[in-house]
């Protein structure tokens, strides 16, 4: 064990401070220190994406980041993108199009999709498949995940047009 560091994070808009060993992984710090259990641990080698969060504007796999590295960062997790009364379009869309089954990959999937649509608001099916390729789902075969994301994109764009 090494000396604990003072860690400061802004998670879902709230300032968080805690002590942690530098080697602690960001995913466990979120889950165990901050009780943010939406992001999950699937593969631990950065292949499955179940731990995906947005960190300083990037989609990252929080199993492959030390909490020390993340010190000072701004993080958004699945818990931070909508509320029960005002869900994010993607949260609605995954339900509407049966884009999930066991739900274990879903928080990472949706977080990755939020970033994908932010960077490419009008993706083709191929772009969605390529852009989601860092997230593994064992249940759905992806077809309905892709459908959910494309539908959410249309909805977001329609809303944008209506606003203009």
């Amino acid at each position: 064990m090494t000396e604990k560091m003072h860690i400061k994070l802004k998670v879902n808009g709230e300032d968080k401070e805690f002590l942690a060993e530098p080697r602690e992984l960001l995913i466990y710090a979120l889950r165990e220190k901050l009780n943010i259990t939406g992001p999950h641990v699937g593969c631990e080698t950065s292949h499955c994406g179940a731990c995906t969060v947005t960190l300083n504007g990037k989609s990252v796999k929080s199993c492959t980041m030390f909490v020390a590295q993340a010190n000072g960062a701004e993080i958004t997790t699945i818990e931070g993108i909508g509320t029960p009364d005002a869900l994010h379009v993607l949260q609605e869309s995954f339900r509407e199009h049966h884009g999930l089954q066991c739900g274990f990959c879903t928080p990472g999937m949706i977080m990755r999709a939020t970033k994908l649509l932010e960077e490419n608001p009008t993706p083709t099916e191929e772009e969605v498949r390529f852009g989601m390729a860092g997230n593994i789902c064992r249940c759905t075969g992806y077809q309905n995940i892709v459908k959910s994301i494309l539908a959410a994109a249309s909805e977001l764009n329609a809303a944008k047009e209506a606003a203009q």
Partner: protein
Amino acid sequence: MNDLSPERQERSANLKGMGCSRKRVEDARFTQGKGNYVDDIKLDGMLHGDFVRSPYAHARVVSINKDAALALPGVVAVLTAEDLAPLNLHWMPTLAGDKQMVLADGKVLFQGQEVAFVVASDRYVAADAVELVEVEYEELPVITDPFESLKSDVVLREDLAGQTEGAHGPRKHHNHIFTWEQGEEAATNQVIDNADIVAEESMYYHRTHPCPLETCGSVASMDKVNGKLTLWGTFQAPHVVRTVASLLSGIEEHNIRVISPDIGGGFGNKVGVYPGYVCSIVASIVTGVPVKWVEDRMENLMSTAFARDYHMTGKIAATKDGKITGLHCHVTADHGGFDACADPTKFPAGFMNICTGSYDIPTAYLAVDGVYTNKAPGGVSYRCSFRVTEAVYFIERMIEVLAIKLDMDAAELRRINFIKKEQFPYTAALGWEYDSGDYHTAWDKALKSVDYEGLRKEQAERVEAFKRGETRTLMGIGLSFFTEIVGAGPVKNCDILGMGMFDSCEIRIHPTGSAIARLGTISQGQGHATTFAQILASEIGISADSITIEEGDTDTAPYGLGTYGSRSTPVAGAATALAGRKIRAKAQMIAAYLLEVHDDDVEFDIDRFVVKGAPEKFKTMKEIAYAAYNQAIPGIEPGLEAVSYYDPPNMTYPFGAYVCVMDIDVDTGVPEIRRFYALDDCGTRINPMIIEGQVHGGLTEALAVALGQEIAYDELGNVKTGTLMDFFLPTAWEVPNYETDYTVTPSPHHPIGAKGVGESPHVGGVPCFSNAIQDAFRPFGNTHTNMPHDHWRIWQTANGLGLHD
């Protein structure tokens, strides 16, 4: 009553009952990150357990020194077999009637075997302590091949030395587990000897792993004040775990509460009982505080239950015009270091004897030899009913091999051998009674939908173009027709560890007309909370939205055998319907009383009971529920509740017809799936949206297994595919869009005619993908190559056929 007036249509739609694509009620929590999986459980003072595992596949454990680990601040205990022995917990029974070491007792039999269990204040200290436990090993010869094992002088299971009788009959060799025979050997041999045509093939169905995205884990909390043990875990069969935990620990069953929280996928991986569960319980008993154990991905792939690993040899006999007359199958089954297959007791090779498939084969014989090797134990039904994937792969390959021998189109060969619609119920040569089917209709629909003739024409043109040097890609058309056997099972046939494989449902209607139903099963993504409410809505006339479905807590749910082998809908779904009918029967009496008519003069209509011939006189189920609790009704006790324990009279037999079109790059071995069409007949369809989702998922797991997903070992028994870099789980990029279709042939014996669907696409999908690869090379002389069809093996096939010259 048969008109579908708009008013009745609306009432019916409001129920959200069977047949509608109701959106899932589970999704609200999952999409908001509020699922509750085992690793989300955090209790006061909870400690973390972690395993010291064997780096060797076969070795004697000479000594274990815990001193350095125990000296590390934060380490509370280090358990070894020596510590568990006084409690008689160093060995545990497997689901297959064998016993398995919980912690290595004297020696280790596979790489990754559990040697010591470290308990520490957090996962970091536990991981450091694992490194500090000093284990001295003496390496022993390693056997990873079952054929070699049966010839070897090396005794793998010294604890069984001298035992010539196994759980399933005589053992032929010290590394042999069982021989299981079905059918008529002499008669089958005679048919084969006298046949016009006999096709033979040997095939290896490689070892793979269900690999759900969530690994296995448990949290045990022994409350010493009240003498109660609570165990949360990734259990596909929580009630069985409670019984086993009670038998093992001596804690009376009423003092054990087992809870399966949300489960992040199972696919068979979470049926078995693992050393980690036992160790977390022991550690909690020893320390008096809760103990969590969650394995990492490498541990999951190395040590928890694998699937398949069947070496199959077949002979199939036919007349000159293609009528199959006999089938002979022998399997050498590699079970690893312990026999921990998750099969019903009387079926040590599961339902491998469904290997006559969808065909009317008059004579057949099957023999399976189970063998110990230095590989991980397991042998679970990875997204299939017990060994059905192996059986269907075997027969669907044998059909193709026979078609080659007959120089006949494989679709036509299937057609002329299908069991005919009028033959159902059909008793197969190996004993099963198929409940219902209409294979010809399904097959014709499938072939027409894909323009099968057009595809064959295109393929022939491609072959010519290839021969002319105009293209380097070949086209493969994969066919498969499968019959699943699910819904274990009749208690007279099927038990696990002596526990009959019934299932259950308990319903309580609340006074205001909403309800809760509890079942003995447990969802791992199948959407039980959605679909079981739909069954009930149709049965009892209360909207699915007003019905809570609860599973997985043994303190509240009725006893059941759990969810695997597509048994939830066939068994628990039936229990649900029948419990609903009990509710309805009592509701009828209450309604008649309230309407002041005789019981026989009211009838059920969607969401109410109406007076026959006077539909304006009615009582809704809401009104009936209120009266059931609040009105004194002569001769009827208050309340509206029912329980049903359902022992199915037979299995159900879903079936399907799949076609896959692939383009294969001969030079690189890279296949591209151009099209996949899947027609499924799962009987009555409860929720089409969920069925389609299950089909997509099962097909994708089939794609993975067929095209690369493998647990591979080197000759020293080292696992070569221990992370997701090497263990193939496809991403959205490698997976195609699927076309789904259906026919409906209800099960005649199931209360609602449903057959189950979750595993069909996997069972039918694997041979379909494989057949597409094999078919591409058929024009060049290929009869069979083994899976997984990864790039290099496809390339090797092409190379072996001289296509690179």
